[in-house]
């Protein structure tokens, strides 16, 4: 189980928020949500 959890953690990409603008623009034809969140 621990191995599986570690694998999931490794495969979840968390990008830099400085790149969000480009992503937001690339998705401009779509409805979009931005959620501002504390991780804990």
């Amino acid at each position, binding site marked *: 189980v621990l191995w599986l959890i570690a694998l999931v953690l490794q495969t979840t990409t968390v990008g*830099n928020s400085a790149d969000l603008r480009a992503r937001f623009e690339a998705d401009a034809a779509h409805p979009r949500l931005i959620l501002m969140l504390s991780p804990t």
Partner: protein
Amino acid sequence: VSTVQSEVLAKIPSKDLRAYFVWLPILKNDDLAAARASAARFPDPRITHFWDGDKALGWALGELLKLPSREQGHAHGVAWDAYLLYAPGVHWKKTPPMPTFWMHQLWGADELAPLLDGAKFREQVETVVKKK
């Protein structure tokens, strides 16, 4: 965030919808590792995760939304526990655009936007998704 997951993303299966989860250091133990661990709880392929380590986006959105300041020396607060919806066609120029609709769970911001209500937020998202 679990409210948005269970009431909005889980109930609106549209593949057209995009969601950006921006994790930022607000509480004592918030760091990139914690953000990665939290991100792993949301495997929905429509979600893209970001880390706002210097809170640059948090401050920018706080200014845009006119959130009240909680720190001396700052004219406005940081946007967190904030949930923003954008309709198709809204563009991000020099600064982040004003959301089409937003909700929050912030103290002192009741007059700016409604407190988060999963069902009401879902209604707004559904309206935007159906219009497309």
